[in-house]
C-alpha cells in the first residue's frame, strides 16, 4: 500500500492484462493516506473542543496520548530492529542434520491440510 514497490505496477498486473485492483493505482494510496492524515489532525484538534477528565497529571499534557502512541511505536520498532542483530538466525537454525530435510516440508505445511 505504502511500500515503495506498490507505487510501481505490480509484476503480475504489469503486462498480462490483469484487472487493476484498488491499491494498484497510486492515486488511491495517496487518497487513503491523505484521509488518514486528516483524521490524525482532527483528533488532535478535538482536544480544544472536548474537555478531557484527567486522573493522572501526565495525562493532562496537550496531545499526551497522540505523542505517547507515536513515540512508543517508533521506539518499539527501532529497538526491535536492533534486537535482530542479536537474535535473528537462519530458518534451519534449530534443525539438526537428521531433521534438516524436514524444515522445507514445514514451510508449506498448510498443504498438509488442504483437501483432507
Amino acid at each position, binding site marked *: *500500500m*505504502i*511500500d*515503495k*514497490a*506498490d507505487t510501481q505496477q*505490480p*509484476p*503480475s498486473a504489469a503486462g498480462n492484462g490483469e484487472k487493476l*485492483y484498488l*491499491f494498484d493505482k497510486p492515486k488511491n494510496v495517496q487518497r487513503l*493516506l491523505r484521509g*488518514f492524515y486528516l*483524521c*490524525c489532525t482532527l*483528533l488532535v484538534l*478535538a482536544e480544544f473542543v*472536548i474537555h*478531557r477528565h484527567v*486522573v*493522572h497529571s*501526565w*495525562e493532562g499534557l496537550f496531545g*499526551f*496520548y*497522540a505523542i*505517547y*502512541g*507515536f513515540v*512508543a*511505536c*517508533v521506539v*518499539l*520498532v*527501532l529497538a*526491535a*530492529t536492533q*534486537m*535482530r542483530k*542479536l*537474535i*535473528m*538466525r*537462519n*530458518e534451519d*537454525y*534449530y534443525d539438526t542434520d537428521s*531433521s534438516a530435510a*524436514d524444515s522445507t*516440508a*514445514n*514451510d*508449506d*505445511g*498448510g*498443504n*498438509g*491440510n*488442504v483437501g*483432507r
Partner: protein
Amino acid sequence: MWAADLPPFIPFFAAALIMALTRSHALRAAIGIAVPVLGGLHLWFDVDPGLTTYRTLFEFQLMPFRTDQLSLLFGYLFHIAAFIGMLYALHIRDRVQQIAAMLYAGSALGAVFAGDLLTLFLFWEGLALTSVFLVWARRSKTSFATGQRYLIFQVLSGVLLLAGALLIYRDSGSLEFTKIGLDGPGSWLILLAFGIKAGFPGLHTWLTDAYPESTPTGTVFLASFTTKVSVYALARGFPGTEMLIYVGATMACFPIFFAVIENDLRRVLAYSMINQIGFMVCGIGIGTELALNGAVAHAFNDVIFKGLLFMSMGSVLHMTGKINGSDLGHLYKTMPKTTWLCIVGAASISAFPLFSGFVSKSMVMAALLETHHEIVWLAMLFAAAGVFHHAGIKIPYFAFFAHDSGIRTQDPPWNMVLAMTISAVLCIFIGSYPAVLYSLLPYDTGYSPYDATHVLTQTQLLFFSAAAFVWLQLRGLYPPELRSINLDVEWFYRKLIPSTIHSVGRVIGKPAVFAWRYVVSGLLDKIGDTLSRHHGMEGTLARTWPIGSMVLWVAILLVAYLLLGYL
C-alpha cells in the same frame, strides 16, 4: 434438555466416543456442531449459579461440577469457542483432529467447573493430552518434535499442580478450589503450574513454539482453551496477588518486540496472545472488582477476536500453503472477505471504539490508575500501542496488502468464512453493546467504557501508533519481513543444553574411548581369560579326572574323617 447437574464435559466426551466409533463424516460433523450448541443452550437456560455436585473417591470428597458467575462465564465462552472452531473445521475429515478437539473442549469445560483441586488436576492433564494431538495433526517431523516439547511443558504443569494440591491438602485438610493466595510451598507450586499454562515470561515458549506448528484449524482450538483455563484458574486462586501485576506487565510488553520482527504470521499472533494474557494477569493481580471484571471480560473477548485472527491466518495458510510475511502480500485482491474479517479482528484486538477489545481492556487500564500503579499503567499503555502495531496493522498489512506476492487465490470454503463472520459479528456486537457481556461478569461495578475522554484518548493513541507505522514505512525504517527465526528462551533447551551435552561428550569422549579400549576392555579380557582357564572347555574344572586320583582323594578324606572321629 438433560439434568441440570450433569457436568458439561460429559456430552463432549460422549460425542468424542461416538465420533471414534462412526465411519460417517457427515455424522461426525453434525455431532461436532450440535454438541456445543445444545450444551451452550442448556448451560444458558437450565443451569444457575450456586449449583454443586459431590462425588466421593476413596476418602476424598470431590466436586466435579460447581457453578458460579465466574465459571459460568467461561462455560458459555468455551461452548461458543467450540462451536466456532468446529464450524471452521467442518471440512476436515481427519478423525483424530475431530476427536481431539472434542475431548480438548470437554477438558476445558471440566476444568472451569471443577470445584476441587484433584478434579482440576485431572482435566488439567486432559487438556495437555488431548491438545497435543492437534499439534501432531500436521504429521510432519517438525510438528512431532514440537508436540513432544509442548507435552513436556504441559505435563510438568500438571505434576506441579498435583504436588501443590497434595501439600495444600496436608496443611488444610481440604481440596476445595477457592482463593489460594501465596502462603506456603503448595501455593507457589500451584501458581507455577498455572503460570506455565498462562505463558508467564520465561515459561511461554511452548506457546510460541507449538501454536504456529499446528494445522490451520487445530491452532484455532489451541488458542481458545489452555491459556484461558489458566486465566480462569488464576482469577479464582490468586486474585489480588500483587506480584501478578508486574508479571502481567512484563507479559504485555516483552512479546511485542518479538512480534514486530517475527516472520511467521501465526507466531506473531502467538506472541500477541501472551501480550493480551498480560492484561488479564495484570488485572487479576490488581484484584479490585473492576480489575477482575476487566481480566475475565478480556479473556472472553480475546478468545473471540484472537480466534478470528487465527482463523483468518489459517485461511491464508489453507488457501496458499504459506504463512510467512515474506511470502505473502496483496491477498486483498482475491481474498476480500477474509481481508475484511481479519481487519475486524485486528480492530478488536487493538481496542478501537465499537469493537470488543475496547470495552474490556479499558477496565484493567482504569483499575491501574485507580490503584495508583502509574508506572505499570505507562507500560501497559505502551503495550496497548504495541499490540495495535503488530497485531492490528502488521498482520493484515503483510498478509493482504504490502508488496504483491503474485499469489492469486480465493476466499476459503463457506464454513470457514461463516465461522469468521460469526466471530466478527460477536466482536462488533460486544463492542457496541457491552451491557450484555457486563451482565455476565462476576461483579456489578457500574463501569461505562463510552465517555468522550476515553473514546478520544484511545482513538488518538491508535491513530498515532498507525502514524508511526506510516512514517517508518515511508522513511524505509520499518524492518522488512525476512525469512528467518528469532531466538527466544527456548534457545536454552533447544540449543544450549543439547550442544553442551554434545561438547561434553566430545571432550570426555576421547579419554573415555581410550579408557574403554585399554583399561576396561583389558580388564574384561583378563577376567574372561581367567574364567575360561577355569571353566572353559580346556579349563581346570572341565578336565576329566583319572579314577586313580579320585580314589586317592577319597582315601585321604576317609583318613581325615577317621582321625577326626578319634579326637
